[in-house]
């Protein structure tokens, strides 16, 4: 009992210290690395809180994909302006300390008032758990994401697409060789890819299928799929292209199209909007979402509207 409290204490303290370092570190690259470490500790904390779905998402998206995206952003900043390293300016803003104190007071107030509230009994989570029996899904998180609150999930997919379109609108397409940072002359890289890429497909498929009954789901699976794609971009097997082909456009929008298609299609059978008919619908939507999420993240990473195979 005591030892488990000790682990929680170390995790909590570690997160506070890491968070402080992330924002106070001057060198941007160190900040990014610390942010990734913070994400991994955060994933451990979610595991301790018995939220494996969140832990998986935090490790795959929060630490992995976001870290990779930020490192690529840092690299592009260096390309734009090689003389001045992309560091935060010295000295802190005058409002920094008042804002920090205000935020601390807010958190303390909410925390203290939460201590004196009787835990509510008739919560939405309780109702959702009771309803899970009828759905045929074993994982309540998937139930909430795809059945009970699926409008939120649908809008999240839309946000992801908007993010991609926004990035495409404001940034110049990356130069074909810009995204590749790993030198490809060594045979080990090919060996790594030969193992890593099939494995990322295997693991994402497993996460997708497991998502109905165990921790996992489209978001985690998409992030793992994106990891394989990021490895291919880093090693220049896939290069930024100018024009997305039909397949890429279909894949990027597949999640949204499948979700809206099934969600609206059920109205023809007299159902309410977005009431999914059965588990097969959940599978179809989750698969389409995984493909869309994976490709969107890789395209954001490559900083380009399309990907093409390496031209030798």
């Amino acid at each position, binding site marked *: 009992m005591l030892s488990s409290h000790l682990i929680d204490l170390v995790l909590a303290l570690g997160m506070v210290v890491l968070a402080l370092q992330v924002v106070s570190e001057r060198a941007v690259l160190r900040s990014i690395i610390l942010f990734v470490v913070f994400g991994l500790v955060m994933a451990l904390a979610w595991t301790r809180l018995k939220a494996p779905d969140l832990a998986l998402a935090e490790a795959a998206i929060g630490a992995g994909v976001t870290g990779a995206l930020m490192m690529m952003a840092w690299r592009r900043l260096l390309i734009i302006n090689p003389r001045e390293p992309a560091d935060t300016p010295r000295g802190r803003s005058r409002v920094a300390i008042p804002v920090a104190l205000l935020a601390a007071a807010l958190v303390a107030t909410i925390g203290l008032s939460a201590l004196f509230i009787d835990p509510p009994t008739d919560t939405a989570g309780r109702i959702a758990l009771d309803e899970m029996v009828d759905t045929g899904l074993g994982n309540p998180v998937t139930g909430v994401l795809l059945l009970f609150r699926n409008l939120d999930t649908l809008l999240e997919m839309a946000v992801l697409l908007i993010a991609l379109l926004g990035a495409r609108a404001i940034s110049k397409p990356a130069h074909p060789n810009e995204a590749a940072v*790993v*030198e490809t002359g*060594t045979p*080990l*890289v090919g*060996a*790594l890819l030969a*193992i*890593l890429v099939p*494995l990322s497909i295997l693991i994402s498929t497993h996460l997708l299928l497991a998502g109905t009954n165990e921790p996992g789901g489209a978001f985690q699976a998409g992030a793992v799929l994106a990891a394989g794609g990021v490895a291919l971009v880093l090693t220049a097997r896939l290069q930024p292209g100018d024009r997305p082909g039909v397949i890429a456009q279909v894949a990027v929008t597949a999640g949204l199209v499948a979700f809206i298609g099934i969600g609206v299609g059920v109205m023809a059978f007299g159902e309410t909007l977005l009431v999914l008919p059965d588990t097969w619908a959940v599978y179809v939507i989750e698969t389409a979402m995984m493909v869309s999420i994976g490709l969107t993240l890789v395209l954001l990473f490559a900083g380009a509207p399309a990907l093409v195979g390496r031209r030798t």
Partner: protein
Amino acid sequence: MSMQEWVALALLIAGCFFYLAGTIGLLRFGDVHSRLHALTKADNLGLMLVCAGLAVLAADWRTSALLVLIWLLGLLAATVSAHLIARHARRDGK
């Protein structure tokens, strides 16, 4: 404590020792190559010992196989990244 738990404890402590040694090497050694040497070699052994300890504790073939897989993936990542960093450092003449 049962025999099984003692074995697992010994393996876990040995694993932590190698992790500690690798980290001290990373912090104390002078150049990139010896730092990489300390880090990747010691950490791989540490990871193996920790995985072995957890496998003994789990006493389950499926979990043990997954732990072996995790160790192999760790080996793969460490090998290739150490190789790439060392190549890069040599090219930069450090």
